[in-house]
């Protein structure tokens, strides 16, 4: 038997994989050039260990065929805003979601008086640390906003499967938003809905916080406000990360605080980028207020010493150490501050 390492090497051609074959065309046959495996490659093992229990992932070199059902940003949510569906959703929200939110998150609502004189539609821009954020925030909205509100939800996460798309469009009135790149369709849909009188809940961070601290804000909320001329209400949700943190497996009863800020409108000539920074700063002030008091937070805001939403730029353990501690959800004797029932409210606050 012979061994000839040189012969094959001279035959090697530049790496190229023609992936056209995967799409059902009957063009030329696919050609995959041979690639040498490094020790790291050999040690690696491709694919999900849980397959076939879990769904297969799709090789990067193979283009996906057009989905049979339109998912992601192409998912059509019109049906979820039809009157019968809204009626069922409203009943669900008032009779199931709100009691559950009270039981689990016991929210203290501050600043909702700003909403009393505000005309719909508005854009609610909140920080995002948990899947609990959306139902909690919807539970805390005044009645005239609550049942005519849609939620901007990540198209790649909430709309990647048919069943998920149907579930979240129905239960939350979710609409798909492309969060990884600019997508004309999803931006147009959100703007059309706002112009059509729908309030919008949007999380400008684009996803839940991985460690409890905030992430950099993206420009979606500011862009929609600039485009539609409708105000942005900054909202800060405190404590939801303790109820159900990202990657958490179970729900833990914890007290939360929902703080609405003063509605913001873009100034004359202010572009979306600068207006976005103003929204982020407003939410940071609300975050400060949730852990101190309104006056302290205001003074720090004026002095420019409001703590960053993104937390200190230090080692991960120190960031974790610096997070506000969770508050137990055991009955609080002072919970019903103004004696008006649930949610707990702090009453009118002087400006």
């Amino acid at each position, binding site marked *: 038997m012979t061994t000839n390492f040189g012969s094959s090497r001279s035959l090697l051609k530049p790496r190229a994989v023609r992936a056209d074959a995967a799409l059902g065309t009957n063009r030329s046959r696919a050609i*995959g050039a041979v690639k040498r495996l490094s020790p790291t490659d050999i040690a690696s093992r491709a694919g999900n260990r849980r*397959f076939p229990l879990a769904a297969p992932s799709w*090789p990067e070199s193979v283009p996906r065929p057009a989905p049979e059902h339109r998912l992601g940003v192409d998912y059509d949510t019109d049906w979820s805003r039809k009157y019968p569906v809204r009626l069922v959703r409203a009943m669900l929200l008032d009779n199931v979601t709100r009691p559950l939110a009270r039981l689990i998150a016991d929210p203290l609502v501050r600043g909702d008086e700003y909403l009393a004189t505000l005309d719909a539609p508005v854009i609610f821009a909140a920080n995002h640390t948990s899947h609990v954020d959306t139902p909690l925030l919807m539970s805390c909205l005044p009645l005239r906003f609550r049942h005519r509100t849609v939620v901007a939800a990540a198209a790649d996460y909430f709309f990647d499967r048919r069943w998920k798309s149907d579930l979240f469009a129905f239960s939350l009135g979710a609409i798909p938003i492309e969060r990884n790149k600019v997508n004309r369709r999803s931006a147009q849909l959100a703007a059309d809905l706002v112009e059509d009188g729908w309030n919008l809940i949007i999380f400008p961070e684009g996803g839940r916080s991985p460690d409890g601290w905030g992430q950099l804000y993206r420009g979606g909320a500011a862009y929609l406000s600039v485009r539609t001329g409708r105000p942005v209400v900054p909202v800060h949700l405190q404590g939801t990360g303790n109820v159900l943190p990202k990657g958490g497996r179970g729900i833990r009863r914890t007290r939360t605080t929902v703080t609405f800020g003063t509605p913001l409108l873009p100034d004359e000539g202010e572009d979306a980028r600068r207006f976005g920074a103003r929204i982020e700063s407003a939410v940071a002030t609300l975050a400060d207020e949730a852990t101190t008091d309104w006056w302290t937070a205001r003074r720090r805001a004026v002095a420019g010493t409001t703590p960053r939403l993104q937390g200190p730029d230090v080692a991960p353990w120190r960031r974790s150490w610096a997070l506000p501690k969770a508050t137990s959800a055991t009955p609080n004797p002072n919970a019903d501050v103004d004696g008006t029932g649930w949610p707990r409210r702090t009453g009118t606050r002087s400006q």
Partner: protein
Amino acid sequence: MSPRPGFVLEVDRSTPPTLYWHGERFRLERLPEGSRVIYAPEPIDPLEDPSAAIRRALQSPLGDKDPLPALLRAGMKLTIAFDDISLPLPPMERPDIRQLVIEQVLDMAAEAGVDDVELIVALALHRRMTEPELRHALGDRIYDAFAPNGLLTQHDAEDPDALVHLGQTDHGEDVEINKRAAESDLLVYVNINLVAMDGGHKSVATGLASYKSLRHHHNPQTMRQSRSFMDQHHSELHTSNWRMGRLIADSGVNVFQIETNLNNDAFPPAFSFLQKREWEWSVKDRLAYLGVSKALDRTPAKYARQIFHSVKAPHRMTAVQAGEVEAVHAVTTDNVWRQQGVTVDGQTDILSMGLPYISPYNVNSILNPILVACLGLGYFFNMYRGKPLVREGGVVIMSHPTPWEFNPVHHPSYIDFFEQVLSETTDPIEVAKGFEESFATDPWYIHLYRTGHAYHGVHPFYMWYWCAHALQHLGGVIIVGGDPAAVHRLGFRVASTMADALEMAQDIVGPSPTLTHVHTPPILMSDVQ
């Protein structure tokens, strides 16, 4: 949507685990990133009306042949020979193509008033088919009309009264074939072309030949010069058969060749995951895989084998052509490539393959260690055109349990070959020199071949010769999950996991190797550029 052509995938971190046959089981292997996986083209669309297509082919033959009805006349002697149990794989659902074709030939013969008609199974040195197998291939109508009258026979390569020596080729090759076939006014051969090796002059020159004739091309020297025997134009096996076929034609044997192509739809819907690319497995496919594989894991191999051998393939005919042998076969071969061909860029250091439970020589039987070697190194290795998929000095990794197990009824001489011959030497040349003659002429093996359902005594030698090209070309062979004793007897190395096999292979091919996996089923042919 038209069927998709073959595809070469480069494995990346998102590629799901790859399915391997493992005898009567399956394995899912997570291949290293950068490996290649070759997938076969999807089944091409079958003929809408196979009966009409057959009729058209018989009435409009290719090459220098008259339409079949014009060749049939009262008082003539007509013989219809057909391929045996080794084709197709797995055996196809009823009606078998042979039944569809032969019924039309017989209809035409009846219209022409032909009385002297005999059917012969062209089994060369293969085992005789059983009645249920013949009924499955021909249908009850043909079987009941011919078998009770002794007009359905199985070629006997050891019956001197049933053979005729037609002469020698210019290379000194004896041509000795079935006497009834040779002395008929018309010999109609009905072929099923599953792989490019089948058909052409090989149908008659091999299928109806004797050991005296077969030994001229079924030997290690010829097989080593067949690169590959799936590529007729570079196959010494075919060159020899073509010489014999032309001599047969020159001797006055009037052969009307009918060749058929199948698509590669090899497994019924319950096993549809076998033929799909893993990343396209639906929930149903994953459930089917889990159900089937878990059930098989808990089923004794004997019963798992019975389950698989009861599976009938939903193969469908994609083409049929008839007429002069070489003209017909050229079209057939093109059709085979159209269904199975995949262009592959460059050779590989390591070639991996999962071997199934079946080969042409163990239908309704056991895939014994010799047949494991033949399936991997004889068939899968040779499924190329241009140059082998694996480079010279490279390694083949096969996945199969390779049990030390034989069917004593079908493979009696295999047992002795494995025990006596391979324990002495695995070199095909030495094997041929030292042992072939005694096995080929052993009266007990001949008796079992002629009267039972045993492969001829020399058949295990041919299976080993089938590996001769690969054994000469490769630097090593590793069987994953094989029985160590059986694998070592074959002269190969055994590994318990694919990771171990890759480690062992690097000892032979060196570090930073290239790895290519041939994903089967369905079968595919690599056109290596």
